[in-house]
């Protein structure tokens, strides 16, 4: 479903991703872990198409197409969903209104008829229950005055309504207490399906206690330094990111020495 080859990305002319490769197939859940500043969120934003993230090399193919050629809203309509680390407030716009506008934009794109208010409400109410959310939240302005936990749940609610093919969850676990984390994890687990892929971007292994990934990748210095099965997360938790970073730096030095030697 998603193939990333040799991806280099700069932000404000600063290289953040430096040759990242990743392949995600339908039905898989991948966890991207790594220390602060390793480029995890950059990867999430590049996939969603945020401005200011400049791809200088490499390619991203999604469902066989060149993802980088698509505008953010086109990516969303093609089934990419980003759950924000910091969901944005939009004063005066009711939560339910944004949801409906989003869903209908996608339905139009797929050539389906738009849902009317009644059908839409029925759909959303079902999803609300899944996320253990109060209906009143639908009528409040988007994320305005929401607690940290409410914001994160609201992101997953949007995901549940929009039913993406590829969901990217950017630090969805940060700022959640254990009860909220369980609710969010339940919501995510309920959405796992053979047609859907997910990328969980997280700093801590905690989330992975509740959502068991198929693959775990460790990002360090702008590339995937280490990949493995679900147990890798536990190793990391024990040994810390310093272990990976030290190892990556050593590797880089070895490569550097080798190429210097080759030149001499």
């Amino acid at each position, binding site marked *: 479903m998603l193939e990333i080859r040799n991806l280099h990305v700069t932000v404000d002319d600063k290289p953040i991703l430096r040759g990242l490769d990743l392949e995600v197939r339908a039905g898989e859940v991948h966890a991207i872990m790594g220390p602060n500043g390793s480029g995890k969120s950059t990867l999430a934003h590049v996939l*969603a198409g945020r401005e200011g993230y400049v791809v200088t090399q490499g390619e991203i193919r999604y469902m066989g197409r060149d993802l980088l050629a698509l505008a953010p809203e086109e990516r969303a309509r093609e089934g990419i969903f980003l759950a924000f680390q910091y969901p944005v407030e939009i004063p005066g716009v009711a939560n339910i209104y944004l949801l409906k506008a989003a869903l209908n934009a996608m339905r139009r*794109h797929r050539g389906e008829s738009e849902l009317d208010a009644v059908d839409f409400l029925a759909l959303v109410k079902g999803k609300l229950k899944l996320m253990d959310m109060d209906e009143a939240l639908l009528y409040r302005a988007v994320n305005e005055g929401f607690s940290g936990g409410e914001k994160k749940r609201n992101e997953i609610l949007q995901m549940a309504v929009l039913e993406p093919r590829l969901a990217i969850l950017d630090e969805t676990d940060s700022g959640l207490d254990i009860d909220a984390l369980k609710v969010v994890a339940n919501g995510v687990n309920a959405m796992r399906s053979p047609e859907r892929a997910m990328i969980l971007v997280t700093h801590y292994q905690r989330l992975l206690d509740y959502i068991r990934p198929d693959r775990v990748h460790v990002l360090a210095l702008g590339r995937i330094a280490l990949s493995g099965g679900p147990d890798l997360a536990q190793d990391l938790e024990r040994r810390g990111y310093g272990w990976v970073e030290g190892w990556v730096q050593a590797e880089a030095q070895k490569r550097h020495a080798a190429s210097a030697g080759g030149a001499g």
Partner: protein
Amino acid sequence: MGKRPVQLDELISQEYRHGFYTTLDADAVPRGLSEDVIRTISAKKQEPAFMLEWRLKAFRHWLTMTEPHWATVHHPPIDYQEIVYYSAPRGKADGPKSLAEVDPELLRTYEKLGVPLQERELLAGVAVDAVFDSVSVATTFKEKLGELGIIFCSFSEAVHNHPDLVQEYLGSVVPYTDNFFATLNSAVFSDGSFCYIPPGVRCPMELSTYFRINARNTGQFERTLIIADRGAYVSYLEGCTAPMRDENQLHAAVVELIAREGAQIKYSTVQNWYPGDKDGKGGIYNFVTKRGDCREANSKISWTQVETGSAITWKYPSVILRGDNSVGEFHSVALTNHWQQADTGTKMIHLGRNTKSTILSKGISAGHGSNAYRGLVKVAKSADGARNYTQCDSLLLGDRCAAHTFPYIEVKNPTARVEHEASTSRIGEDQLFYCQSRGISAEDAVSLIVSGFCKEVFRQLPMEFAVEAQKLLGVSLEGSIG
């Protein structure tokens, strides 16, 4: 009454039968302004002597005045001797012959707003055979309103049929000496609307459809007078969301509202005159004087306006809170895009005891647009316990537009409470990206965010109008991003 809902296409298929336009001759008076021109206008309208006298007094006073330049708007000098101050309704010979001759940009806008086909021709000024008239609606409405003693007619009709009311109230809120443009209007006004609600009567319908259809050809100097007698209520809608083509660049209207004891007047406007093109060429100068007088105790006047049109808007719908416990409200959305300029706001003049006023102003600037809120809250010595709350918010799109806020506060009574809050924000890239990442296009996202910003004001509009106004904002903001 069990009447069918009024269909616009049904209306426009009506033959033109009668109405106040027919009393006018087809010839226009010569360019420029003089006592003779005013005498001619008055004679053509067969006005009683008091009207002519009033016009002449206004004209003589106008000669002593100079054009005001204190607003933050800029325009080339206006040559008042180049304007034709009176012209009869346009005949078939003028204007475009068909929609094919009309600016495609304008047609595209009608399309987006969902204006019915036949109505587009009228709005675009196409000379059509079946003259678009409101006779049938007017008759239906008038019967119903007549039963309640409500008078609702054109200003000219009122001058003929209700001269006593006109004489009593005309100029009693906006005197002919008021300001340069109001004085000019007093001298030359062509027509407008008149409305009188008798004591204790609640007007059963929004006075809208009739007016919106009738608004055509009321010309550049329009005059409206609304009187709500003791305990009466009326909600009045002015304007139209569809942009109207008009060859007159200067519009100087006057609106006077009078609320007597316990009466309530709600006045809503959607103003969408031609704003000029993307480079700022053309467009209407909209210099309007609107004022309401809460003349007696427990009365209430509220203004709600959505201003998206005109090259220049200069307008301060105000309330004089004379009666004790009277209430004044002003809710405004003003949007300027491309090279539009708006200097708008309100004046709340507290004279009576325990008078209350609320001001809620939302300014949106995009492109090179300039948007100023200018408001005066004045509490006189007599106004014990007066209260005002003002909230002024500005939203900026892009980095070439401007927003200004000029609040003037004068308080002469120590028991008064006056609060002012202001904010300026920019549509954030993060808000746009958030919406886009949910599949919503950047343009739709802008109009979503803007309508959220304006929500509190839209809530004041009658339902149907609110929906149209929201659509209108979206269309007016096209091309403002990217």
